[in-house]
């Protein structure tokens, strides 16, 4: 959708390359791109101003080193700055010496409080605690039913009674003590930060239950308004931490940076999916890369690990590096890849993907065509595409509903890919030891760099200087 900061800086950087030192004008230009990238990520304009000023200070007069690609140098500075701003003090839950530990959830309508409350309860349960949920959202129709259903799913009791939310919260707390529960999570109604009456109500609930932790739930898609909302809630309730919801969407999530900066409280958790266990502690480093649009390798790897059958994937990867990867393996791995969701999403997470590929609409329908072609081949053909002659070609085309040219293209691309993989396999040899080693042992830095080169991306991988990939598409695409 939006260009990553890396893409933005590429043009400028080309000109900077010959220079020994960045001039003020150069820096201005670079800063303007950084500013745009941050604004497109929905970082608050006030926060952007501060960040850019700080980065500027570090960039002015920075010598352009011969060894380092200046764009990567800059991205490194920006990335480090964002990580520092997002991270810092992390929230460590200290349980009340006199149980129960009380947690209050607050936020705007639709930010995801009820779902987050249940997810949090499940998290506490996984920490060996015995939570109870209190439904004090008596405003939205069926909010309590929603909480009860979720509570059922995770086997956590839910207390609620109709009437007054403050009284419900008080009675719920008593009930929790009676049942001997050690964590109490109070779900409240969504409210506008400017709605005086509703803000007073949640403050009343807070005074009544005396929470040990008050969490503000913030939608990752929130725009510029995130700061005023966070500020208003913080003044009223003294927020202890933030829960970032809907982070599984494609929003860059600049709101995380804005909120963290404005209220100075850590982002404690992030909701990363609709499933109730899709809830984890927050990783500032990943968020920084995401805001900059730099791809999120770690998330990708985690997703891949969930989806791919570890043994098979490793086997396939090994064969790949040895140049033994066949169309059959390819087909098999494609099936796995499809499980990871839309290809465009995966591409977005890969660092240094050339723009042409990011922008190309890659639908799963296209994968289907490839699949159809491979499926129309015999086993021998899949294992050794070189035996595919004219008559085989037209048979495959007929079988897959494609043209002969499509078959040619696939075979040609696959062969080139094989060559490339073989080249990469060379990297896998353990250094210094010589001879044959386990191909699994790759120098990760080199491999990543090679990966970057392969994609022709420049400045793709933050914190990884030296990938001097030439701009434009690698031969593979030409």
């Amino acid at each position, binding site marked *: *959708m939006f260009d990553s900061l890396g893409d933005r800086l590429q043009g400028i950087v080309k000109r900077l390359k010959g220079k020994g030192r960045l001039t003020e004008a150069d820096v201005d230009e670079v800063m303007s791109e950084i500013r745009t990238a941050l*604004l*497109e*990520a*929905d970082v608050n*304009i006030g926060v952007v101003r501060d960040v850019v000023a700080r980065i500027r200070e570090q960039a002015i007069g920075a010598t352009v080193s011969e060894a380092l690609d200046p764009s990567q140098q800059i991205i490194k500075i920006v990335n480090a700055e964002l990580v520092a701003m997002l991270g810092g003090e992390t929230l460590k839950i200290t349980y009340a010496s006199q149980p129960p530990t009380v947690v209050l959830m607050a936020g*705007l*309508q*639709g930010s995801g409080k009820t779902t987050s409350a249940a997810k949090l309860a499940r998290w506490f349960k996984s920490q060996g605690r015995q939570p109870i949920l209190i439904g004090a959202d008596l405003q*939205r129709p*069926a*909010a309590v*039913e*929603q*909480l*009860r*259903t*979720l509570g059922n799913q995770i086997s956590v009791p839910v207390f609620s009674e109709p009437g007054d939310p403050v009284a419900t919260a008080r009675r719920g707390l008593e009930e929790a003590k009676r049942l001997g529960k050690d964590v109490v999570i109070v779900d409240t109604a969504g409210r506008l*930060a*400017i709605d005086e009456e509703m803000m007073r109500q949640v403050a009343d609930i807070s005074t009544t239950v005396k929470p040990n932790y008050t969490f503000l739930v913030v*939608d990752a*898609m*929130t*725009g*510029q308004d995130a700061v005023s*909302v966070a500020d208003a809630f913080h003044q009223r309730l003294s927020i202890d931490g933030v829960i970032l919801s*809907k982070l599984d*969407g*494609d*929003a860059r999530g600049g709101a995380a940076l804005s909120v963290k900066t404005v209220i100075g409280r850590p982002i404690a958790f992030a909701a990363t999916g*609709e499933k109730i266990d899709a809830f984890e502690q927050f990783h500032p480093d990943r968020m920084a890369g995401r805001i900059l649009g730099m791809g999120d*390798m770690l998330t990708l790897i985690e997703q*891949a690990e969930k989806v791919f059958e570890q043994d098979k*994937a490793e086997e396939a990867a*090994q064969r790949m590096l040895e140049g033994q990867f066949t169309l059959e393996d*390819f087909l098999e*791995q494609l099936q796995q*890849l499809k499980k*990871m*969701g*839309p290809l465009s*999403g*995966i591409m977005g997470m*890969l660092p240094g993907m050339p723009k042409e590929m990011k922008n*190309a*609409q*890659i639908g799963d*329908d*296209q994968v289907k*065509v*490839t699949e159809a072609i491979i499926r129309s081949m015999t086993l021998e053909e899949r294992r050794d595409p070189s035996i595919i002659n004219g008559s085989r070609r037209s048979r495959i085309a007929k079988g897959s509903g*494609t043209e002969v040219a*499509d078959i040619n293209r696939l075979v040609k691309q*696959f062969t080139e890919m094989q060559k490339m*993989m073989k080249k990469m396999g060379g990297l896998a040899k353990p250094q210094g030891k010589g001879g044959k080693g386990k191909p*699994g042992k790759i120098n990760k830095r080199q*491999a*990543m760099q090679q*990966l970057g080169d392969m994609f022709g991306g420049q400045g793709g991988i933050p914190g990884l200087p030296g990938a001097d990939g030439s701009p434009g598409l690698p031969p*593979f695409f030409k």
Partner: protein
Amino acid sequence: MFESSTINIVLLISVLVLASGGIVLVRSRRSKAASTSPVAPLTTTTPSSTAPDRYVDDEGSSSAATGSAGAAAESETLEPAKSDDSVVGDEAEQVVEETVEPATVKERAGRTRSLFASAFQSIRGRGSIDAGTWEELEETLLRADIGIGLTMRLLDPLRAAAKAGTIGTPDDAINALREAMTAQLTTTDRGLHLDADKKPNVWLFVGVNGVGKTTTIGKIGTAQAALGTTVLMAAGDTFRAAAAEQLLVWAERCGAAYVRGAEGGDPASVIFDGIQSASAKGIDLVLGDTAGRLQNKSNLMEELKKVRRVADKAEGTVNEVLLVIDATTGQNGLSQAREFAAATDVTGVVLTKLDGSAKGGIVFAIETDLGIPVKLVGLGEGAHDLVVFDPAEYVSALFE
């Protein structure tokens, strides 16, 4: 952190993506070339450009499956009051005006200190136009979530005009900006379409999680029922816990018929049942709820396409697909609009929660870049707080 095995997996993925991506690239290039050179056309389609299948047979499918739906629908069917094609939005507002104080963007947005107003005060205070003027204007637009791209497109001509001398004072600049912003929202047809000849009319509601789809249906249902339109609400959100109950509360409040399915059931069949039931009972309008979904979840978007397809097959007319967007949404709103439009042929946007401090500026980009008009805005929790979007009023609410 990096295990060597995970690196392998990443390599593998990358290669796979590369492989599939490479094919696409060549493919799209080739199809471009095909139009200029006499090469035989591709028989394989390029699916990226194909719209979701539409079934346009109005009376085609059988009218089965009304049994359970009919049983679930409790309210009696009123005599339809409307007899011609109409744009109901305006009327809804009129009727509301007679009974309840109508909400206006200006008054509700006025509850918060207008950031535009204070910025303009400072701009006017400068007396003349300087670099600071542009900076402040830019910042103000950005704060309203209008986005950096559109902000530049709005301000660059003004800067040029100032250089050329056609804009001389800060007041000129502000007025010119106001005109330029109003000019962005030029769609004239912002009404919701209700066609008496083709009932039941079907309005589907789509959007990401938590934007207020169910609440919007409740409000629209209430307004329509007050106009004498008979309404059926179909609880197509079978995913979120208690979503169907939430809709039932609204249906009971406004006396609408109601159809639901099993939790976790097929949303398309719930919508289909709803339409068939409405058709059997002569109900004018079906409001179809759908589960919130993030636009990058391809399986859920496929599910939504199916809902749309199946709704088209039932004995009704789908004449509105409304994308509900939360006013606090930032630049991601554009991606939401793009993806939902691709999946369901969105006919309009409902901008909710505009009564908070957020300005909902992303709708400018949605309307100008994607051509999807804003039709309604939500200004409060009451049923009468959902009003027809008036661009001039919206822009002046930002400015005053």
